[in-house]
């Protein structure tokens, strides 16, 4: 029939147009894709290959890691610091996100600005500020000495305490922002319904709001844990000798011991851990840019 052959021609033409359109899109994405591919993935693959070729295929760098008590200690510290940082961020971030989600728009905007200002300030500057605050002759010790609460400076940094204070401070926005975006989407009438049915404010929070905010909790916790696990600057400046984390061990092996094979194996292990956490994160949240602009 002539009609169907005409529509077949149209369909073929449309397919041609579609294919051209697709090619055009590929062309637009390709420069960025190639750029990131060459400059990021090539060096990363080089690291993976350095970890197993030395000079022929070997797993001894991984063997070294899994037999070395130092590696286990560093892994333990990394896990402990990341976990405590995550818990700290959740405990401090949850009430703030809750307040932001329920405040008047003007107040919520102001609180958001505070969070973003902190988020925007250079990580190095904020860590330095904590060095100034927590040092032996730092602001906090001087203040406590002047008031007479203590007679000797407290050891506030170069230990686990200092690392946690700094890490929680730096990563708090990464908890507050996902929590807030989930809490903002919770239907407030559900809380009112619970209260109409006789639940007090506390019970309606516990049985209605809290479970509904869980996607934000999981997302924020995974994000903070993931970033903590690979952190370097804050633990390096505020931590002590015994609180070394994975990032610091990698840095030590590369810049002081020039042990590329071992450092590459450590980097590969860290990468796998973070990649697994990221896959878990993707299941619970879509990656959004934590900024006012998105």
């Amino acid at each position: 029939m002539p009609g169907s052959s005409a529509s077949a021609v149209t369909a073929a033409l449309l397919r041609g147009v579609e294919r051209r359109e697709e090619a055009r899109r590929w062309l637009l994405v390709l420069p960025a894709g190639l750029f990131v591919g060459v400059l990021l993935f090539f060096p990363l693959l080089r690291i993976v290959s350095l970890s197993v070729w030395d000079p022929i295929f070997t797993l001894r760098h991984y063997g070294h890691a899994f037999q070395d008590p130092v590696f286990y200690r560093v892994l333990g510290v990394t896990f402990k610091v990341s976990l405590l940082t995550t818990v700290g961020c959740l405990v401090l971030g949850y009430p703030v996100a809750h307040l932001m989600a329920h405040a008047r728009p003007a107040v919520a905007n102001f609180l958001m600005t505070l969070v973003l200002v902190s988020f925007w300030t250079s990580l190095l500057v904020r860590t330095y500020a904590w060095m100034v605050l927590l040092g032996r002759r730092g602001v906090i010790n001087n203040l406590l000495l002047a008031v007479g609460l203590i007679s000797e400076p407290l050891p506030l940094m170069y230990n686990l305490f200092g690392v946690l204070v700094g890490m929680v401070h730096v990563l708090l926005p990464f908890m507050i922002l996902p929590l807030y975006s989930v809490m903002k989407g919770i239907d407030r009438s559900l809380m009112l319904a619970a209260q109409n049915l006789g639940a007090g404010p506390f019970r309606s929070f516990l049985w209605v709001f809290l479970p509904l905010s869980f996607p934000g909790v999981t997302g924020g916790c995974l994000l903070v844990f993931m970033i903590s696990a690979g952190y370097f600057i804050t633990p390096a400046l505020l931590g002590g000798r015994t609180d070394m984390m994975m990032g610091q061990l990698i840095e030590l092996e590369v810049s002081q011991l020039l042990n590329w094979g071992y450092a590459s194996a450590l980097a590969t292990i860290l990468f796998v851990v973070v990649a697994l956490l990221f896959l878990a994160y993707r299941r619970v949240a879509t990656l959004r840019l934590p900024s006012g602009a998105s």
Partner: protein
Amino acid sequence: MRYLYHSVCGLVLMYLILPVFVVIPLSFSASPYLEFPPRGFSLQWYQQFFGLRTWYGSMIFSAEVAFLTMVLATILGTAAALGLARAGFRGAEALQTVLIAPMIIPHIIIAIAIYGWYAQLHLIGTLWGLVLIYSVLAVPFVVITVTGALQGLDPNLEPAAMALGANRVQTFFRVVLPNIRPGILAGAILTFALAFDEIVIAIFISGTTGTTLPKRMWEGIRTEINPTIAAASTILITVSFVLFALLETLRRGLARGKR
């Protein structure tokens, strides 16, 4: 109960924000040590900063790196976002993952990977070495902001312009670009800020030549006890604030335009 809740929130917000401001008064101190509250007022640490080539030179170098990164990453990222928009073509998701990867991978891993490679290529301590890797880190931010702007764009505008006789280039420059400009600008500001503040990768690949401001601070942070670092920090904070204010203005303007 309510009182407790509000005071907890207030304390957390103070914890979040006060440390940012603690270094500013220190940078105006007259004392050669870090003392709080600062004794006296002086601009000597700024004089020191702008008098020493190692300090102000590193700031100028950082600005150059940040500017070039901004240009390169904004062009690449905007093109990629346009290509990925209204995704659904083969491989789009894989490409998206590739483009997001630099945001996820710990910087310490990227730093040592690039360090080893750059050492072979003699790119350590060079302007372009830094610009190239910072652009990699920055592209995802541009992709995300421009994609956001494109999602707000009426999908009928482009076909309408073409039906009215505009060609592809005209359609892009006259119809698409003016509509997504805030997204592109936001991406550009983010990339500038990222390149100006980055420290982990700079520790490795910003050498004795081509030292960025954060790298210069890192070198002195444990050894120099005078407040020049506080002055450098204040400068970094000021730059961040200006960029943040620009971004917020942009966002407010965008929100008004949509209404």
